[in-house]
């Protein structure tokens, strides 16, 4: 039997930021790449949508790590996209509001340190030491934080619970775990990359980021197919040999990269006939991160109490993040504690989100409006007085909505829960037990957030390219 000659070297499943970055680096090196995306829009959680003349960012609303030597900037520069995307930075990037503090995160880290020191004079030296550790450590030093929790790390530096809560709230928001559960590696990365170097925005809407990556990918000879559902990953002699598309059948390729939910990759796309029961059991027992409830509001006109456009405002009415996490996890989200709200850079809409449990579709059909009203009321009460009088459009995405559009298991916002026990699960690395099948994105247990998945996407491409260059001319 003659082997079918494939037009593709690599097929990437999923056009989220991880898949797009991976595809771009592979195409840039001259490989023929197909990205298959089930949705009609590229970007995964980094998309924008239009309703009644308003443009809303769907989930991701800004990103970090674009300082001079930041990973996100390095990636965009390597793909010749840094100037093209016109990334701008909002200053201040974040403001944390608690019953007796209002801490602003400035563009200048020294200014942020001074602000924290003014609010917590007894911790003056510790604040400097902690932030110095975060920004001046070598990348490899963060490896020493693998087994600790973020709480363990904070307690090495601080005594004041209020300060530790303030330094943990955006970590809960961007990592969906409280300080006692999130790994210090992830917690410190989130705080360093999202908060100390956060607030970046691509052009006029978040969709500009995936759109620019798609354009670049096509310029480099890549092919993106939207509304293209992958049914199976084919494996022959323990080597990935291509994918089966719902509409077009089998498409062979030399490598397959899965940027989609790991449960889908192992349970559905590969299945029991290929993956050992022990491994499926392990994945089945792993815990995904919490999902989020996202509120979208279109306003009639700008008014006085609105925050600075593009600044993320975090609000917590008490100093107990374990309690905030428990209420989110158990679905007690009428209380909507520990949320983030921002006025959009185009000054027309408001986006707010809070961690939320998956539940099911029926639950959210029944509770969505109630949760939305309660959320608006709290934003009006604590952050933007008068908001209710200016609303001309409102909508919300529930955890089920997130699942519906992205197929992320249980609408998980950040892939697997980043606990020390789950982080770096050996079975879910970029290299898999199947030759030529790679994983990338936030389901690898290594990373989360836009800079994180972009970085892992680039690294997955590098692994494939190294394999290609070392095997060139050798039939395997």
């Amino acid at each position, binding site marked *: 039997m003659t082997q079918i000659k494939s037009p593709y070297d690599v097929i990437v499943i999923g056009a989220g930021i991880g898949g797009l970055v991976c595809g771009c680096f592979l195409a840039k090196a001259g490989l023929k790449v197909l990205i298959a995306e089930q949705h009609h829009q590229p970007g995964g959680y980094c998309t924008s949508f239009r309703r009644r003349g308003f443009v809303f960012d769907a989930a991701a609303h800004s990103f970090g790590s674009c300082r001079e030597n930041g990973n996100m900037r390095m990636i965009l520069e390597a793909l010749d996209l840094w100037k093209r995307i016109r990334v701008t930075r909002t200053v201040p990037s974040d403001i944390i509001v608690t019953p007796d503090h209002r801490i602003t995160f400035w563009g200048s880290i020294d200014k942020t340190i001074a602000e924290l020191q003014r609010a917590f004079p007894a911790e003056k030296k510790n604040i400097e030491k902690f932030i110095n550790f975060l920004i001046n450590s070598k990348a490899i*030093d963060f490896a020493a934080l693998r087994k600790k929790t973020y709480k363990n790390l904070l307690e090495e530096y601080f005594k004041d619970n209020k300060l530790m809560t303030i330094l943990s709230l955006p970590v809960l928001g961007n990592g969906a775990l409280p300080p006692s559960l999130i790994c210090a*590696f992830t917690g410190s990365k989130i705080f360093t990359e999202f908060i100390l170097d956060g607030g970046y925005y691509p052009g006029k809407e978040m969709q500009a980021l995936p759109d620019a990556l798609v354009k670049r990918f096509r310029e480099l000879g890549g092919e993106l197919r939207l509304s293209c559902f992958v049914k199976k990953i084919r494996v022959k002699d323990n080597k990935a040999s291509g994918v089966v598309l719902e509409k077009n059948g089998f498409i062979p390729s030399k490598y397959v990269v899965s940027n989609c939910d790991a449960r889908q990759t192992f349970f559905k796309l590969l299945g029991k006939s290929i993956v050992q029961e022990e491994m499926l059991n392990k994945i089945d027992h792993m815990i995904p991160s919490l999902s989020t409830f996202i509120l979208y509001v279109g306003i009639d006109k700008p008014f006085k109490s609105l925050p600075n456009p593009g600044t993320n405002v975090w609000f917590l009415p008490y100093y107990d993040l374990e309690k905030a996490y428990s209420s989110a996890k158990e679905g007690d989200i009428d209380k909507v504690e520990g949320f983030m709200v921002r006025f959009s850079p185009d000054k027309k809409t408001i986006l707010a989100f809070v961690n939320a449990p998956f539940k099911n579709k029926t639950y959210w059909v029944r509770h969505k409006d109630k949760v939305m009203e309660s959320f608006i009321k709290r934003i009006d009460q604590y952050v933007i007085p008068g908001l209710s009088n200016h609303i001309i459009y409102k909508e919300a995405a529930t955890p089920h909505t997130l699942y519906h559009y992205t197929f992320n298991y249980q609408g998980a916002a950040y892939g697997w829960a980043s606990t020390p026990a789950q982080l770096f699960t*050996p079975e879910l690395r970029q290299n898999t037990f199947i030759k030529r099948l790679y994983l990338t994105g936030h389901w690898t247990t290594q*990373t989360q957030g836009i800079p994180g998945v972009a970085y*892992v996407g680039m690294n997955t491409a590098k692994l494939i390219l*190294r394999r290609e260059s*070392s095997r060139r001319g050798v039939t395997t």
Partner: protein
Amino acid sequence: MDVKKEIIAIIADVSGFDIEEITLDSDLVKDLEVDSIKAIEIAVAIEKKFKVSVRDEDIPKITTTKQMIALTENYLTKKGAS
């Protein structure tokens, strides 16, 4: 178990570099592009392969392949002695 051979195989698998490209004096960060994520992956793989516990504080101290092998041998000796 050939510790040297196994460690080089782990580093090759995680870094993507070929076994032939990895020498005892290879600098993990400078030559093999090992970052914090890859360093942790190497530590996890060593723990799984040799049934030892890698102390987190030891990871950033490792610069070369040789040091990584010595560290693992040290863990194995301690494990054998206990």
